């Protein structure tokens, strides 16, 4: 892939990254846009024309978009869409405007202020909004780049909040915990503290059966279990009301 190869992407007919993002929005595309510049790369995730997530190095969400938009002369290509957690809630036009403002203010040495998330932010769901501990947990989960989706269930397996529209996975997560409890009885041990299900496509489902709730995380193939667990540990030890 290179900038001169129209089939792979890149500056097609002189289109900038920002313009190409707007084109994907207008065309209501569901795809992943892989952006590369020198030895760096990032991804932007579209679902039916909505920019829902992005990743660039350690950054995810809007911050990743802002970083990618600062790259000079990147090459890019369109690949298959992915089922992703929606980290980005601002409309694309706002993000592009914000990115341009940040560029200007960065040059002027001033700090930028983020706009408040829209009502469709995962942090604005009714279950999360009025529960500080739950809000903190969701914030922490969203900040982990490898998380594709999260499922928070009470100990009876009833959904508290989830980022995906998949209605079958919560039951499966609950059953994995039930299986763990049955295995615990046989082995006469304590737990399970964690259940890890590796998938044939390289992704992973990680389940934490806690005292107050069950946390299920769909992680991409780059995830490190120990790293994800370490990031969650401070919030997992808090008592989250049922």
């Amino acid at each position, binding site marked *: 892939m290179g900038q001169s190869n129209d089939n792979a992407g890149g500056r097609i007919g002189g289109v900038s990254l920002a313009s190409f993002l707007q084109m994907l929005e207008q065309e209501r595309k569901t795809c992943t846009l892989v952006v590369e510049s020198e030895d760096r790369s990032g991804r932007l995730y579209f679902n039916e024309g909505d920019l829902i997530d992005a990743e660039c190095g350690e950054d995810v969400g809007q911050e990743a978009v802002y970083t990618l938009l600062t790259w000079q002369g990147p090459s890019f290509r369109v690949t298959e869409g992915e089922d992703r957690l929606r980290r980005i809630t601002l409309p694309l036009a706002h993000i592009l405007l914000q990115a341009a403002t940040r560029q200007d203010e960065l040059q002027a040495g001033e700090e930028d202020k983020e706009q408040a998330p829209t009502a469709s932010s995962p942090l604005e769901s009714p279950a999360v909004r009025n529960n500080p501990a739950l809000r903190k947990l969701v914030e922490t989960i969203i900040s982990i780049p490898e998380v594709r989706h999260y499922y928070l269930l009470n100990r009876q*397996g009833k959904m508290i909040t989830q980022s995906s529209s*998949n209605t*079958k*996975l919560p*039951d*499966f997560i*609950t*059953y*994995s915990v*039930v*299986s*763990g409890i*049955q*295995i*615990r*009885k*046989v*082995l006469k*041990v*304590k*737990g*399970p*503290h*964690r*259940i*890890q*299900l*590796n*998938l*044939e*496509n390289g992704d992973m*489902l990680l389940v934490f059966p806690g005292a107050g709730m069950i946390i299920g995380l769909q992680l991409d193939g780059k995830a490190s279990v120990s790293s994800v667990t370490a990031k969650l540990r401070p919030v997992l030890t808090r008592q989250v009301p049922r």
Partner: protein
Amino acid sequence: MIGMRKLLQEIAVIPGVTGSCIFDKKEGALCKNLHQDLSGTNLETVGIHLIRLLQMGSMVGLAISSSHFRFDRYTVIGIPLDSDSVLITICDAQANCSLVATTAGMLAADMRDDMERDLSVTTSTEQEPESEAENNDEKEEDTFIQVQLDEVEQALASAIGPVAAVVMQDYLARWRQAGPSTSARVPELADMLLQEIGNPELARIFSERVRSIL
């Protein structure tokens, strides 16, 4: 069997492995290699739950290559060999479970190839009588009994949740082996399914629903 024992012996030398077993849904524990601390462990229960979990995963679109259950003293790793059998490996809590799973997975893949080769030899000689038996079952199982079985499954799902579909498949296979698939034998199936319902109240409700179906 020799291949299975060899697999378990190779897994046993991986640091941290306390025991391993190959479990088949129909045949039970085919082969075991356990340290004395685990010698009395009922691996049937572990195996059944791991296989059901893998099957349920398949039903919700998850192709699971390995499952790891981390407890305080052990980590239990389940690696599917085929749709009805699983390699169970039990490690110390401090073991490098990723290494164990990767190594066991590699060895299991070799085993799977050997099993498929063996299966292709045995099923080619058994296939005709089995398919003839299945055709007879299909003729016997008319629409009415299928409706009854669907309703029994729904009643079971009310008692034990979404795993009912997987459990029902298991017990239907055994029920069909024991006799013809007729409405008169559905109570017998219901009695078998009652074993899966631990809660007495849910078991009572299930029995009442089945009575109303029949």
